[in-house]
């Protein structure tokens, strides 16, 4: 990991409330799918904000972020002229799956799962990428290249399957579920549903967790989740953010 000022290459609205921020990343630290970074907000919000890498290639990296509060609204006005303090890459990233990967992305989990999908496709792993959203306005136009099978599920049925991602999988991809591995990122409730799906079908499930972070480098023990390990609490930033779903005590 490294902390550096990076030049903004572009910062575009790609779907309702969602921006893609592309920036220069010249460093010997190459981000892996599932790893994240922290961005320093300008002015008021004090703490750095964590975001997962959504792509990395040729000295360019990106994140996809949703505008939810002060910091993200501030980021949305960044332009090419600006530079921004980035600390990363952080955390562990996804393990390479042993079976066909089913990647599940909900809401702000889209960025890391896109990165993972493209990476896995390049490795010939034929990933299925399931994207869940409230309605189609939250889903950006995607250019994933070949090798990724994209499935969309919206709560209101305005695009793709009508229902949530687990319902979608059970209905339309039931045949695959017995012989795949789930990797997912999104709202806690979705991760929990994915975990339960994995238990039901007796398959592996990697979940990318989220917790409030202060240091994001493993020093403060602020971002812990409860696990089944003897050492009860594990740090999302350093021991994760990706965990085997069976390690987590789900609440």
């Amino acid at each position, binding site marked *: *990991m490294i902390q550096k000022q990076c030049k903004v290459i572009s910062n575009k609205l790609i779907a309702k409330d969602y921006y893609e921020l592309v920036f220069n990343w010249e460093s010997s630290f190459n981000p892996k799918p599932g790893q994240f970074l922290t961005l320093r907000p300008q002015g008021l919000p004090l*703490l750095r904000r964590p975001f997962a890498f959504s792509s990395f290639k040729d000295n360019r990296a990106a994140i996809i972020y949703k505008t939810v509060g002060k910091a993200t609204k501030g980021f949305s006005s960044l332009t090419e002229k600006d530079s921004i*303090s980035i600390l990363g890459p952080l955390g562990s990233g996804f393990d390479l799956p042993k079976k066909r990967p089913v990647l599940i992305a909900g809401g702000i989990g889209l960025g890391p799962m896109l990165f993972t999908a493209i990476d896995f496709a390049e490795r010939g792993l034929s990933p299925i990428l399931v994207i869940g959203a409230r309605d189609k306005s939250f889903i950006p136009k995607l250019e994933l290249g070949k090798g990724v099978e994209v499935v969309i599920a919206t709560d209101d049925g305005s695009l793709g399957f009508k229902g949530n991602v687990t319902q979608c999988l059970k209905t339309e991809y039931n045949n695959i579920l017995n012989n795949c591995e789930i990797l997912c990122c999104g709202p806690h409730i979705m991760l929990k549903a994915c975990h339960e799906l994995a238990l039901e079908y007796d398959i592996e499930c990697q979940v990318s967790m989220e917790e*409030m*972070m202060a240091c994001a480098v*493993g*020093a*403060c*023990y602020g971002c*812990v989740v409860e696990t089944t390990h003897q050492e009860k609490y594990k740090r999302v930033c350093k021991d994760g953010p990706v965990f085997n779903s069976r390690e987590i005590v789900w609440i």
Partner: protein
Amino acid sequence: MDLSVKIRDKIMQNPVGTASGTFGFGEEYGELIDLSQLGSIYTKAVTVLPREGNPLPRLTETPYGMINSIGLANTGVKGFLENKVPFLNTIKNCAVIVNVAGSTEDEYTKVIDMIDSVDSVWGYEINISCPNVKCGGLAFGTDPVQVERLTKEIRKRTNKPVIMKLTPNVTDITTVATACEIGGADAVSCINTVMGMKIDINKKKPAIYQKTGGLSGPAIKPVGVAAVYRVSKKISIPVIGLGGIMNWEDAVEYFLAGASAIQIGTANFIDPNTPIDVLDGIKRYMTNNKLEKISDFHSFIE
């Protein structure tokens, strides 16, 4: 220019340290900055037995500050000796100060007995903000009588520098500081976090599991500066200042208030390079203002 700071009979190469609980045991930040440039590293609190810490959430943000209730999560003194000391042994130049915590006098002294022979341990910072079982849940650090006794007990066990870390959550911090001095402490550090609380109005629940926690960051800087000023006028052992130091200007403010050294806490989270930048800034200020040594800062304010 002489940046060194003497505590007891030992010398720190410079007055910039990293505060307990914000810098782990140095390892994580060792990837980002050159630890050998630091004056000191104060470790995360070490207790006799391992502690899992508080349930989550443990952190929240507040207006220009943050609240934490990590709850002394640590692997205990044995874990410290096995897993942390090997790395600490590799750190050059910088004084490694172990932050010690406990709920009884015994718990404090046991930690010290178990690590006093470790060469790479430069000294101790005694966290007396922990809830004291014998003191009805109030922190040790709120009662001068108990503080003096604890300090004396610790003093008996070690010849290394003993720094008592004061809590600001008291009516008169100078009486506690005096108790430390009488008890035989070599220095005091102030301040620990300020008691604070935040409520999530959407969830209608406290933002952290423990409801109240410790406020840190820029918001509390004036509280820390006031504490350092008042304490340093009252006692004659060195005062180590912290609380909301984000840049060299803040550090200089603490020196002018009477601090002989400072610690960077929350700022490490915002910019890991802060301790190095602060050190550079202090040097520039001293050059521009023709100050030769840290104690030269102390003559300006009555």
